[in-house]
């Protein structure tokens, strides 16, 4: 869509338009709620634009089709939801091992097991710790609005190519299903020329081998060191977070994605009661904005983490603060979304406990 276009759409549809506008050439997916709008929408849009849509026989096949298409140097995306993302983990490990760029969307739902189709943030560990086998990470972006579903998905393709590493959009059933107005902030890109190293035959002038097998231990260690160096570079160059109403605050809520939306309303309720509270919202979950959070935490009386999980990002908050500030937590699981009143009440209880 053209720059400055103002549209009302679902988050799942916004990320489809973002993929299209980023020059994504191939999409491979498999039906699973609550991300079905993505393959449905793209099954029409991609062929209309002369691009590739293919419904795979499984999430396992879909991620391996991504691996094949990414090998040829084109922009490629897949999307799924929690159980399907679990199935993709071996493929994601291979993508990182073979250093291939790809965009992977997880519209999270309740777990574990088949769980349910309600919104959840319980895949944080899986997304930020690697998820599959081996010492690797994916760059994880967490949108908190339909606008960000579009903007961050556009960026995800650039970041994937910058690092030759998969980038995950970690979102949830609320973000995927809710409709909001958004503005197209950049002109669409044409489909870019395939990356020069892509496996399209030696006619390009050289022979390409896409591989994650390094049978000699010292060579595999070198490959691991290359990967770790990329992750360090991500932390230097591509950290993102947002600070809201922290200037005069003595308490900061730490939340991302849909939880941050609930917390924004909770903060309004708390401020009406005179509580000086603001929010720190990580946008990159890996790399985690630890230094920025520590700087905020050092001047707070309490950091209060709110998640739609039993407490996963909480670990990163603790690691960032290393005991420099008291840390509280409130979370709901299984697809239950807390009300702003519940969050406010939980935070007030923690403040009373700490004598703030």
């Amino acid at each position: 869509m053209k720059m400055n276009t103002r549209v009302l759409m679902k988050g799942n549809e916004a990320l489809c338009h973002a993929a299209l506008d980023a020059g994504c050439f191939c999409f491979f997916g498999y039906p699973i709620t609550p991300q079905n709008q993505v393959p449905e929408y793209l099954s029409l849009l991609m062929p209309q634009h002369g691009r590739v849509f293919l419904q795979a026989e499984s999430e396992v096949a879909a991620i391996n089709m991504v691996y094949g298409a990414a090998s040829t140097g084109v922009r490629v995306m897949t999307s799924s939801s929690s159980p399907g993302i679990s199935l993709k983990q071996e493929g994601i490990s291979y993508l990182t091992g073979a250093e291939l760029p790809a965009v992977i969307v997880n519209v999270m739902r309740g777990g574990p097991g088949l769980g349910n189709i309600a919104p959840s943030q319980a895949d944080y560990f899986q997304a930020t710790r690697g998820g599959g086998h081996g010492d690797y990470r994916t760059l994880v972006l967490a949108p908190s609005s339909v606008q960000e579903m579009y903007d961050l998905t556009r960026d995800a393709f650039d970041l994937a190519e910058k690092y030759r590493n998969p980038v995950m959009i970690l979102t949830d059933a609320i973000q995927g299903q809710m409709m909001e107005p958004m503005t197209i902030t950049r002109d669409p890109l044409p489909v870019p020329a395939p990356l020069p190293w892509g496996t399209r035959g030696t006619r390009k002038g050289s022979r390409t081998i896409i591989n994650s097998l390094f049978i000699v231990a010292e060579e595999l260690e070198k490959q691991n060191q290359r990967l770790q160096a990329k992750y360090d570079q991500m932390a230097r160059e591509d950290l993102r977070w947002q600070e809201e109403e922290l200037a005069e605050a003595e308490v900061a809520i730490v939340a991302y994605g849909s939880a941050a939306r609930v917390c924004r309303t909770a903060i309004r309720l708390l401020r009406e009661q005179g509580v000086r509270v603001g929010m720190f919202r990580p946008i990159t979950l890996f790399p985690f904005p630890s230094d920025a959070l520590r700087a905020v935490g050092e001047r707070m009386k309490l950091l209060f983490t709110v998640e739609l999980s039993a407490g996963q990002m909480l670990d990163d908050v603790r690691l960032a603060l290393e005991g420099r500030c008291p840390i509280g937590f409130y979370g709901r699981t299984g697809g239950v979304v807390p009300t702003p009143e519940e969050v406010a009440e939980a935070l007030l209880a923690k403040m009373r406990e700490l004598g703030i």
Partner: protein
Amino acid sequence: MTTMLEETVFSRTEALCDMRFHYCPGCAHGIVHRLVAETLVDLKVLDRTVGVCPVGCAVFAYDYFNCDMIQASHGRAPAVATGVKRACPDAVVFTYQGDGDLASIGMAEIVHAAARGENITVVFINNAVYGMTGGQMAPTTMIGQQTTTSPLGRDPGLAGYPIRVSELLATLDGPTYITRQTIASPKEVLATKRALTRAFQAQVDGKGFSLVEILSSCPTWWAKTPKDSLQWIESTMRGIYPPGVLVDRTGYA
């Protein structure tokens, strides 16, 4: 004074790299690699070929075929090849897979690639055993055949029956060409070469999915000499896996 006349009667094809195969003595992978490589040269498609190698004995095939190569996760080569072909339709794309990779862990991917009529060529090595991991029972291991996980012989009451992949795929409307060949004699090696040529030609002409199953020897895990292994293909494997053309919708003479 005598004059030495030298004439080259056999040399490495340009489609194979100047590398020493890691395969065991008497293993037929070397023969099939050469046949595939020669076919790519004959059809003049080597510089637009992308090969996908499996997990199994042929995992290092990316070091041998002198074209762009991708190493796939176990069983997923047909899905990877699908991604390559859809993204780059003018590439000639082949997978090279063993029976464990293709017929056990990768059964879903091969069936669906065939059902879609994906315009790729699959080279399927059936030697009735897992080679790389140490001679375990494969989905194609025959009744009574001893392996390291069926030490008393494959018992159908415990481990079920061998799968005839080519016959199974031949029930689908998607495939264009499916054939089973062997490398047990020079004559059959040449027939396999002709089958591979037909399979790759079908892809080049945009006709769709082709698969060449090749009954192949594994002297190491069959505990036989190379010669006895070839004999065993003829005496035992052929009976369970009869060679022949199962599907031919190429329209070629």
